[in-house]
């Protein structure tokens, strides 16, 4: 087991290296560069940039060197734990990310917990009452849930619940001016969470419920469930203790996948609700050709995905002694 984990961790290095090479070359062949973005910005603020300025900037940022040398330079920095300086915000990339990451984690975390709390019971009910009206309604809801584009759901929620009736704030994480102590602040914060969380959770619930239902259906006809019933246990105990626990085994491997849904969901949702998180940062950095920031985000999320998959694989073996790694 230990050897397996070490092997998997070592595999991550070449994988991440590959990811970074692909990403770096992709970004470098994009038209436009950070200097162009800066130029547009300085033009907007009424200053002019001379040709000499441009050349000097390019020299400074190392943009005149061959692409593979630029990659090596970047790699050397990263190896020392330095992700460089954002060309858009002129701050160390690590500082920017440290400011943004917690906001995304909060949004994705709340949504993930809520997703599991809703999806698991619904999935169980749907499976236990297979072919009933409830099951039919839930399965149909499922299809609707995975088919509605998240950004559309977000926009419609915004229009009807914020713009139209004004129940919820339109954007951001906090109101500009909140009077009072802890409770008003807390309430303000919660109100800002509601719509983004709904937008992410709906897709998550629909996706996850389907798997919970399927794996419950696999487990229900098993011998040990019949034995539990034959022992005279109440249906509640049979379902929750004997069937549900076993149905979780294949679902654990899906946690990595759910993690990806949450991260992806936050990219879209953050941009709609102006949530100051990583998703918003990613889109802004890409449009402004802020390469150091984009590279750091890609590397971070790739690591997250790899570690997430590894963790769910390990967990799989922990809960199910039948699983052995070779």
């Amino acid at each position, binding site marked *: 087991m230990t050897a397996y984990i070490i092997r998997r961790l070592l595999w991550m290095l070449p994988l991440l290296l590959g990811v970074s090479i692909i990403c770096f070359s992709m970004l470098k062949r994009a038209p436009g560069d950070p200097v162009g973005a800066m130029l547009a910005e300085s033009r907007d603020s009424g200053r002019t940039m001379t040709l000499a300025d441009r050349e000097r900037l390019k020299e400074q940022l190392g943009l005149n060197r061959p692409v593979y040398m630029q990659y090596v330079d970047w790699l050397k920095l990263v190896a020392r734990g330095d992700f460089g300086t954002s060309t858009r915000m002129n701050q160390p990339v690590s500082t920017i990310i440290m400011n943004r990451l917690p906001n995304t984690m909060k949004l994705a975390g709340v949504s993930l917990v809520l997703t599991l709390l809703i999806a698991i019971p619904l999935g169980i009910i749907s499976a236990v009452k297979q072919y009933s009206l409830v099951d039919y309604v839930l399965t149909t809801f499922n*299809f609707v849930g995975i088919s509605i584009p998240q950004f559309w759901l977000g926009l*419609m929620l*915004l229009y009807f619940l914020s713009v139209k009736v004004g129940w919820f704030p*339109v954007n951001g994480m906090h109101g500009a001016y909140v009077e009072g102590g802890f409770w008003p602040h807390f309430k303000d914060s919660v109100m800002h969470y509601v719509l983004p969380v709904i937008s992410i959770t709906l897709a998550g619930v629909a996706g996850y419920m389907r798997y919970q239902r399927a794996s419950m259906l696999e487990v229900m006809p098993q011998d040990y469930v019949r034995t539990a019933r034959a022992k005279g246990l109440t249906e509640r105990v049979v379902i929750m203790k004997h069937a549900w626990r076993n149905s979780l085994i294949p679902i654990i491997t899906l946690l990595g996948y759910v993690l990806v849904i949450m991260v992806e969901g936050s990219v879209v949702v953050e941009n709609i609700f102006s949530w100051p998180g990583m998703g918003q940062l990613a*889109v802004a950095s890409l449009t402004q050709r802020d390469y150091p920031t984009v590279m750091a985000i890609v590397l971070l999320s*790739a690591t997250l995905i790899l570690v997430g998959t590894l963790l769910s694989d390990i967990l799989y073996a922990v809960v199910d002694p039948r699983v052995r790694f070779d």
Partner: protein
Amino acid sequence: MSVEVQRADVVAWDRVISAKVASPRVMFWRRFRRHRLAFVSAIFLCLLFTVAIFAPWIAPYDPDATNLTLAKFGRPAAPSIEHPMGTDQLGRDWMSRLIVGSRVSLTVGFLATGVAIGVGTVLGAVAGYAGRWTDMLIMRLADMLLAFPPLLFLMGMLVGFKRPSATVIAVVIGVIGWMNVSRLVRGEFLTLRTREFAISARAVGASTPSIIFRHLLPNAISPIIVAATLSIPAAILAESTLSFLGFGIQPPTASWGNMLQIAFVQMRDNQAWWIGFYPGLFIALTVLAFNFVGDGLRDALDPRAWGR
């Protein structure tokens, strides 16, 4: 009395025989028809295809023609009899743009799936059949691509194009969407290659490509078809998300995703709900229809689902 029994027997036998005679195609059709939502969805999609194919002739107005007498002071005109879905802030007829935009979504959906299925099938088949280092190489490549957050990867690739066309977007989506298909096909091939007909094909000297594509692949076709129908809606969603975020189809070309770009501002400032409502509704309906058809196909094609 005995005649009655005999007759009942005859009737029963008739049924058995007719059931046996039904060709796989007829059986498939019967099973598919039973899934009512899938059947309705299939009809909806046929209508949508017709609209997309004849879009320029069906659209009541020129989708790119602005009309500022309609959109007074840059305010979108509300839905009316002449413009059932209203106009945008430039007075462009929203329904015409929606009709023309359907082409983008369907093109990307099918093309991206074609690429993903093509690449995925070939790589999965080769990996599953050849095994050893070929298998390892292909699966490691798949692992690497799976480590990318897909949306971020797509945005990064599309940044490289100034005005990506539907074809470019479709190819890009397909290129990073083949991994699940290849895993599926590989899994099928791992068992298929040990079956008797595969061994006998090898014994009579069939070439490797012929074994892979003529003898083994037809046996793995059902799961591939199901995967394909389910990957169309995913591609449509991906394209609309990318276009919405500004990385896909660039305005003034209409696509359902980029029609929603202006939705927030117009809904907030001018209460123009129709700007955001209709394009999203059609994305949702189309994706839903494809998902239902995929589900119906799975019911009809997958023998494991028949018992349920």
